[in-house]
């Protein structure tokens, strides 16, 4: 049974593993995307830079001015990068000599031939600019020349977007691959718990040995606690059994002495007053012994019913044995115990419970029947049930409802003069229902009672 608010370790583990996988996949796709963007940027910059350098190197001073010899190769190199628009600006000194004079200058002027790269918005688009500077001797004076070469980034953005999608797809793939893996990991982690639970669950109800199943170290405290609990339970149960036996011994032995002594005194006394008192004493001793016996029997029956330690046994044979044991009690009242229990009736049950039930039924029939009457004990198979019927010609149920007589400490209204505890039939009823059987009591036609004890046949 799972306590309310219980959660699944496995589900929690899978959830956490998947969350971790999602974070990892995200980081991975971002890293891939950023790395790819950087790499493509670096490639573009290298091309742009070398084109700008090429442009700068092709400048030379001539008479009365400067010449830029724009080589087609320089621009074809750029065209190879995609359908981009190209902007340039060449400054000599502080004067723009050619190109777009509004092309923004870099924040930091380049030194010598090492190009400086920057991205600026220009004419509705972001452009990447490479700036290179050199100095030219113009009219005998060294004059600084600044060459800017810009290019739109549409192609690069397309590449970046494609790479981004690929990175996202990669992340998703990693995440999807993590799902079965997480399930597998969770199952293999929780398997020892399942195996332990199965090993404990598979035990018979009387198996109170400590758990020795191999368990992971993390479960050791749990197994230890379980074993200590089993140990305490075993102690309590064996104490119960010992207690029942000891209690019976310590109550019955002094009662036996008392009863015997009273009987002896009764034999030897001639004074009628004393004799009447001794009879009362014997009756009380019988009463006490019977009540104590029935209470302890009842405890034993409840205890054993809980154990549910069933074995196959022959009900017909047990009926014969119990009837034989009780025959002297019937004989003492000149009663006849007529037994009709042929063959074998195989049932599943606890021999002690069945013996207690049969003994109580037959003992009851003898106790409440008049001398010289007949008690009939029959055992036979009826359908899927083995049925034991004990019919007497006693005082019957006295008009009481049968189910009322099966209650604890409840006795019929017509039995005041016979010693009894009111537990006998309760014991029978509990024994029967513990083993999947039934017990019924009904008035018998023509007087007397009829008890029916049924157990399922195997």
């Amino acid at each position: 049974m799972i306590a309310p608010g219980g959660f699944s370790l496995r589900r929690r583990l899978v959830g956490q593993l998947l969350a971790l996988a999602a974070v990892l996949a995200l980081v991975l796709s971002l890293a891939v995307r950023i790395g790819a963007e950087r790499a493509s940027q670096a490639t573009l910059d290298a091309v742009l830079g070398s084109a700008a350098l090429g442009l700068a190197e092709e400048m030379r001073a001539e008479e009365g001015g400067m010449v830029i010899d724009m080589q087609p190769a320089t621009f074809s190199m750029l065209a190879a990068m995609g359908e981009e628009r190209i902007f340039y600006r060449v400054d000599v000194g502080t004067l723009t000599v050619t190109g777009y004079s509004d092309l923004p200058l870099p924040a930091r002027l380049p030194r010598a031939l090492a190009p400086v790269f920057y991205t600026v918005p220009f004419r509705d688009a972001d452009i990447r600019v490479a700036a290179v500077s050199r100095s030219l001797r113009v009219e005998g004076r060294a004059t600084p020349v600044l060459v800017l070469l810009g290019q739109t980034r549409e192609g690069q953005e397309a590449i970046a977007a494609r790479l981004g999608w690929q990175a996202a797809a990669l992340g998703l793939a990693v995440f999807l691959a993590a799902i079965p893996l997480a399930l597998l990991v969770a199952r293999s982690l929780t398997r020892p718990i399942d195996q332990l639970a199965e090993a404990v669950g598979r035990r018979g109800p009387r198996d109170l040995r400590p758990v020795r199943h191999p368990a992971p170290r993390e479960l050791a405290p749990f197994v230890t606690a379980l074993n200590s609990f089993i140990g305490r339970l075993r102690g309590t149960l064996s104490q119960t059994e010992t207690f029942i036996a000891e209690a019976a011994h310590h109550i019955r032995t002094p009662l036996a002495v008392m009863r015997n002594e009273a009987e002896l005194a009764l034999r030897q006394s001639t004074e009628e007053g004393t004799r009447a008192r001794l009879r009362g004493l014997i009756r009380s001793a019988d009463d006490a012994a019977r009540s104590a016996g029935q209470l302890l029997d009842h405890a034993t029956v409840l205890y054993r019913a809980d154990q549910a330690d069933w074995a196959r046994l022959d009900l017909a044979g047990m009926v014969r044995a119990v009837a034989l044991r009780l025959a002297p009690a019937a004989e003492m009242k000149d009663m006849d115990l007529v037994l009709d229990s042929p063959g074998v009736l195989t049932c599943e049950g606890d021999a002690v419970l069945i013996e207690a039930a049969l003994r109580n039924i037959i003992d009851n029939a003898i106790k409440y029947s008049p001398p010289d009457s007949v008690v009939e004990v029959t055992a036979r198979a009826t359908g899927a049930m083995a049925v034991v019927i004990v019919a007497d010609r006693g005082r019957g149920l006295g008009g009481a409802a049968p189910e009322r007589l099966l209650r604890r400490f409840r006795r019929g209204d017509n039995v005041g003069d016979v010693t009894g505890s009111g537990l006998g039939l309760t014991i029978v009823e509990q024994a029967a229902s513990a083993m999947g059987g039934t017990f019924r009591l009904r008035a018998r036609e023509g007087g007397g009672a009829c008890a029916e004890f049924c157990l399922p046949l195997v």
Partner: protein
Amino acid sequence: MGGGVRFLLVEDNAELAASVAARLGLEGHGVDRVGTLAEAEEFLRAATYDLILLDIMLPDGDGRDFLARHRRAERQTPVIVMTARSAVSDRVDALDTGADDYITKPFDFAELEARCRAVLRRKGGLVQTLRRYADLSFDPLSATVAFAGESRDLRSREVRLLELFLNAPGRILSKEHLCDRLFSFSEPVSDNAIEVYVGRLRKKLTGSQARIETVRGLGYRLTDS
């Protein structure tokens, strides 16, 4: 049982043993009393007994072990176990280990006698309990009385009643005394119940020289006419 049965009583509770032995003695039986299993073995080696009354819990061991050894040694002496433990589990055990019968403490002495009688009857032939009075020859074990060459079956209470008279022939036995011996203390007994059984016994003895006389106001006595 008609007296003269030799009992070995194995019981460690001295008071209980003393009172059971006293009761058996009163009925004319011979009783040897021991408190341990070791003593029991010793006595069994030295003498023969008709019946062993065995307690289950003894200071030097479990009565059931003794029983098992007893059966292995193929000794024929019948054993009745007296148990004081919880009836349910002990009974099954005792029968499994080969007791001939068991009785739960405390017990009605008449019940003990009835069980002894039943066991001796089943085991048969070991004990000679035939008793004679006038022309009667009475066998309490087979519950028959014979006279004039004819045997009659008696019922249990008739057997016990005749035993009571034969134990004290010629003596007046009061109705109360007979009632105490014939009926269990926990069953309701009407005033004339004893007259019913005396009447039945008289009928069974019709034609013999033994007669049960009514002594008005005092009781009954057995006489040889």
